[in-house]
């Protein structure tokens, strides 16, 4: 068996660009038969080496095969009005665009290498620990809190829960506000038993049409509304 140097590619476009360069072919006139077979060979090699072939690589394989079969179809001489588009043109466009950004990434990398060698003073103690908050930080802070709370649930000793009492308690939350977020409602209860009791109470209230549970889209915040009816 001969030695094979297996390069790692970021995705199907990265691999295709490599094949175009390696074969020294014109990106505007890609020999689709040759490139497709090399692409498929590479995919097989990746499998042999247990490299993670993501679905994106397979989708591109399908596209290449499709282009190849289109190229094999007998071509009708196009009239002036309907100049048939080359089946490869979309692929070429994608490759060219990707190539541009690869070059931009290369530029950024070089730029960083020189910047990495200049030092400024470390933040002084007064402003340390303070952040110029952005949305990501805000959301991240919130997500971490939720996670922490979830970890706490279930640690505390359960107490006797009365569902009727819990129903009354739930209704009292809606005296002033029309809606309340589901996660906040649950945030008041620490133990698994408490949470279950609350859920049961909530279901009962929905059945009695005292409350409604709404969600604007899958996985979004669940809101509990006081039923106006």
């Amino acid at each position: 068996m001969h030695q094979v140097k297996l390069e790692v590619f970021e995705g199907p476009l990265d691999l295709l660009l490599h094949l175009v360069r390696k074969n020294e072919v014109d990106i505007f006139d890609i020999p689709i038969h040759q490139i497709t077979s090399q692409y498929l060979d590479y995919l097989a090699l990746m499998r042999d080496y247990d490299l993670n072939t993501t679905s994106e690589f397979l989708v591109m394989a399908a596209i290449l095969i499709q282009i190849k079969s289109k190229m094999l179809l007998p071509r009708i001489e196009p009239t002036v009005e309907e100049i048939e588009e080359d089946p490869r043109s979309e692929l070429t466009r994608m490759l060219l665009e990707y190539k541009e950004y690869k070059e931009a990434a290369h530029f950024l990398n070089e730029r960083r290498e020189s910047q990495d060698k200049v030092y400024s003073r470390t933040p002084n103690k007064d402003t340390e620990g303070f952040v110029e908050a952005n949305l990501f930080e805000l959301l991240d802070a919130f997500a971490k809190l939720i996670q922490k709370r979830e970890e706490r649930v279930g640690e505390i000793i359960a107490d006797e829960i009365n569902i009727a009492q819990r129903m009354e308690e739930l209704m009292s939350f809606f005296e002033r506000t029309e809606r309340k977020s589901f996660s906040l409602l649950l945030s008041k209860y620490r133990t698994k038993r408490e949470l279950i009791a609350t859920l049961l109470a909530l279901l009962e209230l929905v059945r009695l049409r005292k409350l409604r549970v709404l969600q604007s889209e899958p996985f979004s915040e669940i809101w509990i509304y006081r039923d106006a009816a």
Partner: protein
Amino acid sequence: MDLKEAKGAIEAILFMASGPLEIREIARILEIEPPIIRRIIDQLANEYEHRGGGLEIVEIAGGYQMRTRVEYASWIERFYGLQREAKLSRPTLETLAIIAYHQPITKAEIETIRGVDVQASLKRLLEKNLIKIAGRKKVIGRPLLYKTTKEFLRYFGLASLDDLPKLEELKELSG
């Protein structure tokens, strides 16, 4: 290493230091005899002195330190005081996150989620006009309710509260 390079290196090292540096520490790294290091630093200190700028190099606690001249202390304090004023501490940011996603909300409710007292954070957020009081909750004790302000939207570059990223969008990002 020639003298000019040694001088530049010493200046750069002094610049980065948070306290006085000893001659022998610098000498060991640069592999130059301590008396020569001392001579170079003295020369640098002299140049700083003659230039009469905002910085000085002084011998202190058995070492040398680059620092700002005492006459500029008040400007520095004002500058960094205001810069700090513009920022938020982590705990305050957490409190703000809870209010943003759960408004209107009471202090007790925030404390249930954060598990600590949030008095100081609330005060700071009110001062910065990022939150405001939105009435009282109709429960025993009638506690105050808090919600975010227009300034909050401006601070985070949001057109409206609907533009707040959702929790599951973050989860999607964390993969």
